């Protein structure tokens, strides 16, 4: 899951990015409204965390710009303005949720999870594909009841595959949703990570879940199909 944090106060942006990355999200930061608009258009984010008071273009205008371009990605407004009018204006401009500063980081995480879930219309709780289970809150992954240790990137990759179960995900999609802005899509890092993940998930099991679609990408399949 890839998140854009738009916040002009560098220190705030920095701890949000750090905290989110520790939850296995890929995070980019934008420090003013112009940069935010550019980045939202250039990349495929799963969530935007948006401050309202921003230099150059303010958050509400950024939001209007984003919605004006027909982008429906969830936006979590994050601001020190906490009057009812401000909240109403933020939500009416196209915000999906509103959190006032200073906030509890755990609440920010929970709201981010809720927005991501809503985007996919997923029920709360853990993801399950066959006997593979992933808990997005505790980040615990298990197969057949046996816990599997994953690195941050492996976890993020698996979560993305599980969110898109039975659908082909291309390398570009993976690079856009699992890695941040600094990722170079020309390398074979994705293939390396998928192989690591496959070893941990599928090696001790007769039932393979992760499949390669040659020249396109990968798929996490619930039912193993006959070789076709």
């Amino acid at each position: 899951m890839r998140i854009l944090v738009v916040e002009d106060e560098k220190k705030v942006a920095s701890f949000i990015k750090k905290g989110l990355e520790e939850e296995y999200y890929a995070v980019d930061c934008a420090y003013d409204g112009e940069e935010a608009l550019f980045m939202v258009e250039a990349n495929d984010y799963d969530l935007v965390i948006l401050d309202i008071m921003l230099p150059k273009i303010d958050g509400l205008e950024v939001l209007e710009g984003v919605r004006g371009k027909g982008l429906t990605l969830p936006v979590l407004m994050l601001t020190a303005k906490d009057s009812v009018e401000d909240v109403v204006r933020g939500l009416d401009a196209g915000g999906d949720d509103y959190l006032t500063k200073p906030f509890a980081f755990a609440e920010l995480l929970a709201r981010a999870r809720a927005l991501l879930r809503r985007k996919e219309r997923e029920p709360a709780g853990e993801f399950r594909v066959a006997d593979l289970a992933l808990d997005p809150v505790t980040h615990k992954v298990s197969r057949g009841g046996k816990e599997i240790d994953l690195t941050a990137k492996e976890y993020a990759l698996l979560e993305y595959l599980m969110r898109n179960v039975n659908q082909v995900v291309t390398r570009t999609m993976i690079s856009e949703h699992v890695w941040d802005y600094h990722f170079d899509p020309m390398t074979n890092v994705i293939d390396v990570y998928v192989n690591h993940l496959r070893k941990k998930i599928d090696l001790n099991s007769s039932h393979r879940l992760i499949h390669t679609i040659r020249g396109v990408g990968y798929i996490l399949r619930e039912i193993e199909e006959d070789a076709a």
Partner: protein
Amino acid sequence: MLLKTIKFKLTLWYVVILAIILSSFSLFLYFTLADSLYTGVDNKIKTMAEIVVSSARSPFGAGTSITDLDQIMTKRFGIRPLGRFIQILDESGRVGDRSTNLRDVQIPISVQTLKAASKGKTTFETVEVMGKYPLRVVTMPVTENEKMVGIVQVGSSLEGVEEALQQLLLILLIAVPVALLITSAGGLFLANKALRPVDEITQIARRIGSGDLSQRIRIKRVNDELGRLASTFNEMIAKLETSFRQVRRFTADASHELKTPLTILRGEVEVGLKKKRGMKEYQRILASNLEEISRMSRIVDDLLTLSRADMGEVSMEREEIELSTLAREVWEDLQILAREKRIQLKFMDDGFTKVEGDPLFLRQLILNLTENSLKYTPSGGKVELKVKGDQEQGEVRIFVSDTGVGIARKDLKRIFDRFFRVDKARTRNTGGTGLGLSICQWIVQAHEGQIAVESTVGKGSTFTVTLPLKD
């Protein structure tokens, strides 16, 4: 409720006063008229009695009868004494002759009257004889050689007088209450009309009391008392609204300024505590927290200074100060900062620069302005601090000019506003609280001076402080 309203009281007073005036007038009218009517009757019967008496005394007097009298009256006055009753009695009180219109009735004569007549006195009295109206009677003695020889009584019915008075009384008894009723209705109407704007003012004041300061009274008549009251009231609400808005904005700004460091403190600590980290990481978090804490202290200090200033709680010293010396000290202190940023910081002084004021606050003023200029001037730029005395004008001027980013025209007039920032991101990174220039303005005003700013975007700004020179 109604009994307590001004319009009711006003009408009541009005009606009571009018009632007193009208009834006194009516009583006066009634009694004056009655008196003059009765006097008129008395005069007439007296005159007639005198004529009768004199004719009775004349040589051919004794034999004069009432019928002759009628003729005499007709001859003398050209009228017959209609409605007058005449009765002549002998000295013992026996009725001798009487006018025909008396028919069988006799005018009574009391013992007292008879006694008075025997002493030669004339008596007026009102007697009930016939009909429903009393008779006014004059009893006059006929004297010959100091001796009473007979009595003449002339009576006149009071019918006309009593009827007139009764009619007047009736008119007054009806007219006065009717007049009072009409005036009270009119008074109530007028009071209502005059006081309606007051009700409106009350209603609006009530709405304002419930927190809606945007309400205003519609003024129809500008120049009367209520119009003036309403416009005074409106001005007061406008002032209140402005100051409320300022206070609300100030509170919102202040809390916003404090929320940012709080957000950082809370966020960094929460993220930091999520898992075990290395010593370096903890140190970084603590150092960053310390930075935010000092930022908050600065904001709180500045806020405290300003709120004390607002409440007039700050006591200013009144000392003679050589402003150029003070400025030179500030200049020396800021050299390190200027060198760090590679900015050329110059100092100049000229003329007498003695002022009266508080050395600590004046120092803060010069420091704030110069630091401010250093903040907004990029490396390689120039900041100039100049103190110049002008004896002719009796002023000392402090100029702080820089080659910095400058301030846009639209922002110039708001530059001294609390928490106003031309660019909030830039100011926050330089560690400003957004209150420095507000404090400068307050210090200058407390010293009876002026502060002004001129600026060209991209070229730089000049702040000018003018203080009165101390001779």
